[in-house]
C-alpha cells in the first residue's frame, strides 16, 4: 500500500488505452473517502488517444494525514469511458523513524585487545532495524552488571562507559528505512582471583526499547 507524507507532490503514472485514435481525452486521478469527495486531485490532464496504451502522468499533492481511496476517471470527447478505483488505498502519514531489535543480545566471546586496563574483554552486539519511513538516529545505552561471589548485594547495573574512550563502538548510528545496523560494545570482566567466579550480565536500552539482561560470562 503506497505511503506518502502530507503535502508532498507525487506523480502517478497510469497506462491508459483509449480507442479509436485521435480523440481528445482527459484523465483525472483523485484521492478521497468516496468518488464524490475529491480531497486531492490531479485535475484534468489532457492527451490525445492513440488507440494503443500510453503512459499518462497524473501529479497529485498529498493531502493531510489519512487513508484515501484512489479514483481514476478517463474521458474521451467529454464522455466518461473509464472510471476506476485502485485496489490499494494511499496512506498519508507523517514520516517517522521507528526502530526495532531484530536480534537478541549476542556475545562474540572473549577478546584481549591491546587496550588499556586489565581483564577479559567481551564483545557484545545487537541488531536494530529502522522499521519507520524515514532515516533516523538510533542511540543505544548499554549497561553491565558484574556479580562477584560474596558481593552479590553490591551488584547492580551501570552504564558501559568505556565505549567512547576506546573509540570502537558507535553509541549512535543513522539507520535508513528498512536498514539493519549492528551496534557493538565491549565489557571488561573484573579479574579478582580470590572472589572468582564473576558473572557478567548486560542489557541495552534504545529507541527500540529495553532488551535483556542476558548473561555473557
Amino acid at each position, binding site marked *: 500500500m*503506497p505511503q*506518502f507524507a502530507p503535502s508532498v507532490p*507525487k*506523480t*502517478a*503514472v*497510469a*497506462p*491508459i*488505452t*483509449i*480507442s*479509436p485514435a485521435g*480523440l481528445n*481525452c482527459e484523465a483525472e*486521478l483523485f484521492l478521497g473517502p468516496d468518488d464524490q469527495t475529491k480531497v486531492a486531485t490531479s485535475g484534468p490532464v489532457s492527451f490525445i*488517444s492513440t*488507440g494503443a*496504451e500510453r503512459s499518462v502522468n497524473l501529479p497529485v499533492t498529498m493531502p493531510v494525514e489519512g487513508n484515501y481511496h*484512489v479514483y*481514476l476517471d*478517463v474521458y*474521451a*470527447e467529454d*464522455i*466518461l*469511458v*473509464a472510471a*476506476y478505483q*485502485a485496489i490499494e488505498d494511499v496512506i498519508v502519514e507523517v514520516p517517522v523513524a521507528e526502530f526495532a531489535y531484530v536480534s537478541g543480545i549476542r556475545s562474540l566471546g572473549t577478546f584481549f585487545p591491546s587496550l588499556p586496563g586489565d581483564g577479559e574483554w567481551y564483545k557484545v552486539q545487537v541488531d536494530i532495524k529502522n522499521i519507520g519511513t524515514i532515516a533516523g538516529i538510533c542511540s543505544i545505552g548499554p549497561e553491565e552488571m558484574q556479580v562477584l561471589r560474596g558481593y552479590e548485594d553490591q551488584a547492580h547495573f551501570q552504564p558501559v562507559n568505556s565505549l567512547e574512550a576506546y573509540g570502537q563502538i558507535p553509541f549512535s548510528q543513522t539507520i535508513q528505512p528498512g536498514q539493519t545496523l549492528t551496534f557493538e560494545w565491549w565489557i571488561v570482566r573484573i579479574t579478582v582471583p580470590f572472589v572468582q567466579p564473576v558473572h557478567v550480565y548486560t542489557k541495552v536500552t534504545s529507541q527500540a526499547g529495553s532488551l535483556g539482561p542476558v548473561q555473557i560470562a
Partner: protein
Amino acid sequence: MERQMLQMDDPVFPPSESKTAKAPITVSPAGLSCQAELFLGTSPTNKAATSGLIPFTSTGAQQLISLPVTMPAAGGVAYHVYLDVYAEGYLLLAYLATEDVIIPSGSVGLITW
C-alpha cells in the same frame, strides 16, 4: 445503386446510448409509401446498430424523419453511418455519411507512483 456520400456531424457517443438521428429526406412524387433505415456498421452488410425500417409517406417536399438508434455496446470503434430510403419497396437512396459515429472505449493498467 451506388451509395452516395451524405453530410453529417462528427458525433461521439457512449456505448449503448439511445440517440435519434434526424434526416431531411425528400421523396417525389407525393403519396408514396416509403421507409428509411439508418444503421451503423463497419460495412453495409454488417449492421452493428439500426433504426429498423421507419415508415413515412412522401410529400414531394423535404421531410424530417426521426431515426432512433441504440448505439452499439462495443466501444473503441468508428462506425460508418448508412442511410437507405425505400419507396414502394424499391431502394431509392443509399447514403454513406461523410463522418463516422465514434464509440470510444478506455482501459487503465497498473498505476505506479
